[in-house]
């Protein structure tokens, strides 16, 4: 279970939010309303005050990297630091299942990153997050660059993650996607959440 109390970050404020295992909250709102900033603050990527607790463990009771391995942020802009796709994965063997469900063959791991399209990058960025086995996924426009077929694949993977007891907070512009995945729908306006 993920609990957020009095979160205060740059331009964002979340007073009280709880998510149980298997919960998905979809956050909608105009660009610049603070959706990304909230997700980044939850992953401790930006400085924030307040209490965030995952399964009874408070954020500050562990190191930043330990916290981020459990609450994993996947941004709209995916970064790559090695030349080959496979070098970005912790366990390239175990990940082939997720890769397949996202529409890739295992050989995708040998591709050079420079050859990837924007959509492929976005799906592979989701795959490499799954590879690390997080408890919570903080997804920032995860299908922004994807066509309908690829979007369905990504939504399928997210759905399975929720079925297995994962927790998802999803920032999206697509109302139908928010309705399909979100158990609850919230709207972000000027850095504040409302139902």
């Amino acid at each position, binding site marked *: 279970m993920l609990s957020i109390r009095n979160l205060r970050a740059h331009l964002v404020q979340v007073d009280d939010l709880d998510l149980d295992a298997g919960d998905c909250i979809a956050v909608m709102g105009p660009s610049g309303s603070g959706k990304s900033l909230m997700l980044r603050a939850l992953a401790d990527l930006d400085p924030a005050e307040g209490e965030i607790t995952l399964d009874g463990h408070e954020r500050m009771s562990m190191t*930043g990297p330990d916290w981020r*391995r459990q609450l*994993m942020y996947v*941004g709209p802009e995916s970064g790559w630091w090695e030349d080959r796709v496979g070098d970005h994965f912790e366990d390239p063997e175990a990940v082939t299942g997720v890769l397949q469900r996202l529409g890739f063959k295992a050989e995708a791991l040998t591709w050079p990153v420079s050859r990837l399209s924007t959509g492929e990058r976005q799906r592979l960025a989701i795959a490499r997050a799954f590879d690390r086995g997080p408890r919570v996924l903080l997804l920032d426009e995860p299908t922004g660059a994807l066509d309908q077929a690829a979007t369905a694949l990504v939504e399928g993977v997210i759905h399975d993650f929720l079925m297995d007891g994962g927790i998802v907070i999803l920032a999206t512009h697509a109302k139908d996607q928010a309705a399909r995945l979100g158990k609850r729908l919230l709207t972000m306006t000027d850095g504040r959440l409302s139902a």
Partner: protein
Amino acid sequence: MTSQAIPLTAFDLALAAFLLVINGGLSLWLGLGITRSLVIAAVRMTVQLLLVGLVLKALFAQQSPWLTLGVVGIMVGFAGYEIMNRQDRKLTGWWSYGIGVSTMTFAAISVTCLALTTQLKPDPWWDARYAVPILGMILGNAMTGISLGLNTLFNTVVRERWAVEAQIALGFPRQVALRPFIRRALKTALMPTINSMAATGVVSLPGMMTGQILAGADPVEAVKYQLLVMFLIGGATGIGAVMAIYAAVWRITDPRHRLRLDRIEGSDQ
């Protein structure tokens, strides 16, 4: 040693300076547009070097540790300012200047003191005739190395921020996420020193060695001095660059292992 040098008259220098006049004429004729900067640079050099000659003469005559220390302070101040000036991106506040000056000063001064107290051993050990030129050479090279290293670090991290952020979001600690950037910055910092070591003697005769030979020194003795200075330069540049780059990495990240680009001027978002 100096007594053996052939003294130069003002006429000798004027004759050599005439070569620059030819340069200026060529520039005018070909419309290169560098006549003005050529004249300014030549005049500046002449005035600066003559002044330095007078200052050093007075300094060597005085034999005062405080005066020597004062000159060292001025050299360090200018070098620190130069480090900051060569950065495309600066840390907010005084951090660029602080990291540059402190690491460069520490590396250059400690290596110079080592050379003065163990290898050269002038009497007194702080004798300005030895301390100021040795420190000058080490300081100049450490300054170049540190400014190149910091510049590379900040530029590549800002340009590839998403590669850094992706690793941090996946739970990598800062020293792992920034390792390729640290490596690249260190390589750039040390490259001029390595290149000059490799080319020395084959492509170019180093200025200090040439000077000693012209002043009548035995070539093998001059080579030994040059080797000593090159080792000192290599050591100081390495120490200074490693310290500066790690200090800068610690400044652009925080104890929660976040990337803090808000601490580099004009790079936030």
